């Protein structure tokens, strides 16, 4: 059971409340695919991922960015049971998609940087700590069903 402080709960809800999921989803996934190109291995059927511009313009990347952000939204709405909320998603990622869990951390780092860029000075160290704690719990829950 994760212990959230009031500050962390409010901060996480506040951040996600202000995010444009379409914009941020695309930006985070695009950044991940560009900065860590080996992550492209999971998107063989996405068509043109040849360079940053192609990735940015790719509708499948945009669609999947949205899927990811909406998935995170579930965790935001179930902060006290992220593990349970993600049980099926964890099995999906380990059994079907076979994603190396290290990649979750890479995407989480890219999302942190995108949110920092959107929030600027409001993304204080304490806010960053809360946000990264949330992502760490998400990543841990996604890793749970791997064996």
């Amino acid at each position, binding site marked *: 059971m994760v212990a959230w402080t009031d500050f962390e709960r409010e901060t996480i809800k506040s951040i996600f409340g202000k995010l444009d999921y379409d914009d941020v989803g695309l930006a985070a996934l695009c950044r991940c695919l560009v*900065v860590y190109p080996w992550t492209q291995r999971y998107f063989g059927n996405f068509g043109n991922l040849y360079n940053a511009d192609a990735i*940015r313009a790719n509708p499948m990347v945009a669609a999947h960015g949205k899927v990811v952000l909406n998935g995170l939204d579930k965790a935001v709405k179930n902060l006290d049971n992220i593990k349970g909320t993600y049980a099926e998603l964890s099995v999906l990622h380990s059994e079907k998609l076979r994603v190396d869990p290290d990649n979750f951390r890479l995407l989480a780092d890219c999302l942190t940087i995108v949110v920092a860029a959107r929030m600027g000075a409001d*993304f204080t160290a304490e806010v*960053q700590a809360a946000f990264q704690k949330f992502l760490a719990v998400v990543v841990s829950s996604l890793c749970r069903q791997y064996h």
Partner: protein
Amino acid sequence: MSLSANDKANVTAIWKKILPKSDDIGDQALSRMLTVYPQTKTYFAHFADLSPGSPQVRKHGDVIMNKIDDCVNHMDDLFPYLSGLSDLHATKLRIDPANFKILAHNLLVVVAAYLPNDFTPEVHLSVDKFLQQIALALAEKYR
């Protein structure tokens, strides 16, 4: 993952915008690291005050950032340039190299917050590679 000509150009270009705010950025990056990754505080037990913005943290953020700024002019000879610092980190400071990645991440977060329009994915890639090269050079003498 060595630096291409394009990487060097990207790093040089964005550092022109980083330099005027270099002290703030260095201070922020170190403060954030200590707040978001509290285990890194173990390396600063000798600092009286580890709260964000404390004078010792500010000063140390400056020291680190100034050196990174210098590395921008030494991208072609990073390893020889950092040889002395590598000795220091290996024999005296003995910081686990995993922490270089942690500091690098926090530096990227601060740069993104300060320069959101300039810190595109392509530039992020180049800066990340640059910081990883510095980390490699620093760890060179570890064993």
